[in-house]
């Protein structure tokens, strides 16, 4: 079904769905014949076909290869997505994750047969605790949002354990990522928003005014979603603790400070870490990630099951409350032992970088973002005065009266060979453009990006709105009709 000369677009070939390439009876997998046995299915054998298509291996490989060619990835383009930390995904991580001794082991093998795996989890935990300076960690959350939820659960449990069940209000900055209030609601908290100051930081006075003995805590992203370090963080922590609340830190932006700041000294009680951001594990088109959450001494007893302990007998898992001694785990939030395959990759990266490399990484990440901020401030409208941390925030004031929106600008950037920056987040500025280059970009790439963005800004101001509205034109697909997709959802192929 490739199109002919007029329709063929060079390297980008049209590729139908697998269901449209069905050859009944065909398979890309050879299997030995089942032995002839009397079945024990209790009469529950499936009757009728499932409806899956049959394809041979060459067709399947061609299918997925062509699909991949319609995607961009960090491997192919610069991906300055704010708060996503799109850094290089080392291939060593992939090689080590596939060692049979790490990949081909079952979670419930006798512990004596998986001491290396338990050691790996423990070592990964040790690195994360040492880097942050925090005494404890919950390794099981499967993603950042899951880590938030985990941290908030320990806060709720800690308050309940002291009989402080009236503490149901959680303070959340207006600039927070949507997962923050969603996670808070899932723990039975009501969300009370705090405004930002003109400097883009949390308004300390407004925060203090909202304190009371029904406050459970504060959720703060630091560096915050505007790419700025919350410079009043010690006062903020003191205020929250003084009011009897706990301080949850959203660690999505940890890449800015990983080797340079001791999180424990900021007064943080819990912080989730996105291994798929700061620690280079691949984004995989949307997952899987991992969100281990470091905990203070006050919250440590409530960490969920399971966790690894290390004594002179070796490594073992604590999987049941009865085995937890004085700890009072909030329960279990994930099946099995956490995202082990992601731990392998993250630890490989941590060991490769080492303490010195990680420190240099956060330095370079912040340097790169400030370079973008300084280089683009004349042509774009920076939302706040610098310096920024690892990401630079602009808004759409520079596009005023041009007829070009932030969305149009981003789509034009796609045509120039870049993945756009994060758009329309955070919500505290209008038409946000949030750029996070990370430390794995060369100066040449940054200069190329800067030149392109300046050029686009100048074209927008010169009145070329039409070309922006039509963008992108060089991609496998043009802008999609999202309205029809939502009004008339088609969520699967039908014959």
């Amino acid at each position, binding site marked *: 079904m490739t199109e002919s000369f007029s329709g063929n677009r060079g390297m980008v070939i049209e590729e139908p769905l*697998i*269901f449209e390439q069905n050859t009944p009876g065909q398979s*890309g*997998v050879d*299997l030995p014949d*089942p*032995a002839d046995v009397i079945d*024990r299915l209790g009469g*529950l*054998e*499936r009757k009728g076909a*499932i*409806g899956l298509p049959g394809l041979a*291996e060459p067709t399947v*490989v061609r299918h997925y290869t062509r*699909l991949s060619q*319609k*995607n961009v*990835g960090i491997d192919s383009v610069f991906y300055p997505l704010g708060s996503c930390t*799109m*850094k290089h995904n080392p291939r060593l991580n992939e*090689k*080590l994750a596939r060692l049979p001794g*790490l990949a081909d082991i079952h979670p419930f093998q*006798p512990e004596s047969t998986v001491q290396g795996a338990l050691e790996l989890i423990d070592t990964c935990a040790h690195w994360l605790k040492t880097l942050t300076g925090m005494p404890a960690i919950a390794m099981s959350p*499967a*993603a950042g*949002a899951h880590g938030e939820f985990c941290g908030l659960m320990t806060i709720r449990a800690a308050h309940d354990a002291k009989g402080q069940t009236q503490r149901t209000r959680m303070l959340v900055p207006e600039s927070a990522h949507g997962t923050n209030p*969603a996670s808070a609601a899932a723990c039975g908290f009501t969300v009370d928003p705090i405004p930002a100051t003109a400097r883009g930081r949390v308004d300390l006075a407004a925060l203090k005014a909202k304190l009371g003995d029904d406050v459970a805590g504060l959720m703060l992203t630091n560096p915050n979603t505007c790419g700025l370090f919350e410079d009043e963080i*010690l006062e903020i922590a003191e205020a929250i603790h003084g009011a009897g609340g706990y301080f949850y830190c959203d660690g999505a932006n940890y890449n800015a400070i990983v080797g340079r700041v*001791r999180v424990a*000294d*900021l007064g943080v009680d819990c912080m989730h870490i996105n291994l798929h951001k700061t620690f280079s594990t691949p984004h*995989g*088109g*949307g997952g*899987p990630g*991992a969100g281990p959450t470091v905990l203070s001494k006050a919250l440590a007893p409530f960490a969920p099951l399971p966790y690894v302990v290390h004594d002179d007998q070796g490594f073992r898992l604590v999987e049941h409350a*009865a085995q937890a001694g004085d700890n009072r785990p909030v329960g279990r*939030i*994930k*099946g*099995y032992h*956490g995202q082990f395959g*992601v731990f392998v990759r993250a630890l490989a990266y941590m060991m*490769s970088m080492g*303490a010195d490399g990680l420190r240099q990484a956060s330095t*370079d990440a912040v*340097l*790169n973002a400030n*370079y973008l901020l300084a280089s683009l401030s004349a042509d774009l409208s920076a939302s706040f005065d*610098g310096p920024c941390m690892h990401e630079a925030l602009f808004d759409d004031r520079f596009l005023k009266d041009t007829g070009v929106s932030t969305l149009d600008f981003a*789509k034009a950037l796609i045509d120039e060979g870049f993945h756009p920056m994060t758009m329309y987040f955070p919500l505290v500025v209008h038409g946000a453009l949030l750029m996070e280059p990370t430390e*794995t970009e060369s*100066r040449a790439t940054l200069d190329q990006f800067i030149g392109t963005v300046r050029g686009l800004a100048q074209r927008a101001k010169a009145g070329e709105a039409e070309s922006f509205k039509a963008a992108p034109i060089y991609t496998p*697909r*043009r802008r999609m009709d999202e309205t029809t997709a939502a009004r008339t*959802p088609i*969520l*699967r192929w039908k014959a």
Partner: protein
Amino acid sequence: MRYLPLTEADRQAMLAVIGVKDTDALFRDVPQAARRDAPVDLPHHASEMEVEARFTAMAGKNLSAGCAPFFLGAGAYRHHVPAAVDAMIQRGEFLTSYTPYQPEVSQGTLQYLFEFQTQVGLITGMEVANASMYDCATACAEAAAMAARVTKRKKVILSGDLHPHYRSVTASTLQFTDVEVECLEPDPMGIEDLIGRVNGSTACVIVQNPSFFGRLKDLKALADECHAEGALLVVAVAEPVSLGLIASPGEMGADIVVAEGQAIGNAMNFGGPGLGLFATREKYLRQMPGRLVGQTADADGRRGWVLTLSTREQHIRREKATSNICTNSGLCALAFSIHMTLLGEAGFTKLARLNHSKAVQLAEALGKVKGVKLLSQSFFNEFAVLLPKPAAEVVEALAKRGILAGVPASRFYPSYPELAEVLLVTATETNSEADIAAFATALNEVL
């Protein structure tokens, strides 16, 4: 340092453009008390060779499934994954791409997720599926929350035949909401009376088929009772290959199906990452958590795909979202989908039949061992046996003989003495007749 492209010359030139003396000046907002002036007390950077040596050493302390006769299941299954799957998922455009928020440059991801959603709907017998969740345990918790939203009721009943991790994650996740989770006692003999417990305040009942103890059940009567009372039936499937041979939960009347997809396309990886499958009826679409990919057309009228119905999700609804979930299990979903595509109808059904025949052979061999009693007459590829001794001890003894003999129920239920002698065993297409014979022989010796 091989992952850091900047040179010292670069840094100096960039600092000049920024207008600061050194990089420390960029960290001026960090309180002095929290600054680290020197690298942390951890090893310094290492070459690939050195890191590989460390990891090889750790891996060497594990007994991998390929090195011993292997019979474990209990929610994580070992199947042969064709080489093409891993080769495809390692393409950089899949491995290193982000969530497909810019559809024009993510049609690869969006198309495979659309195909994945279709495959999941087909094998579960349900009308609509999402683009995956973290694992079956968390998907179970989400299903319970969804049932509470749909029925506007608060009581959720978890069957005693449900995987203990699915049970505890559901209970833990919902403990601070107004949903009441009732966990029935573990049910190795399949005798619990769920039908009798469903009433007008039940939001849903969650069961597993094949059950945690391996048993196959016809859920139609339970489905009918739930519907008569206005409750939803949620069915969990831990071994997705079973759907190639046994009647689907959709056929039996399920309203929501959750499953663990790891077994297709993905190695066991010591239990993580997993792949949560989630499917439901079209009428409940707007209450379904997680990402959804929908078909549409672009500005030139060509067919393509986008993330859709996002207004249910956290980045828009915030505290009123259907869930706080942000990532899915993307690359694991891709691996699942490629493996399913390679198998096709003929391969998937044959694989399922092959698994069942191996399990029947295993059951026959173990049934001949003195003192061993099969606990269920029907199963797919996993079943429970009752031993004359505590199963955990037996498993340890067999491990010393180089056989990975299954999972003792006491691993999950340490405070239930009546389960101490129950062992869960699984056979898949990766088990040979020699494996099965070795297991039976060794078991005989140890008992």
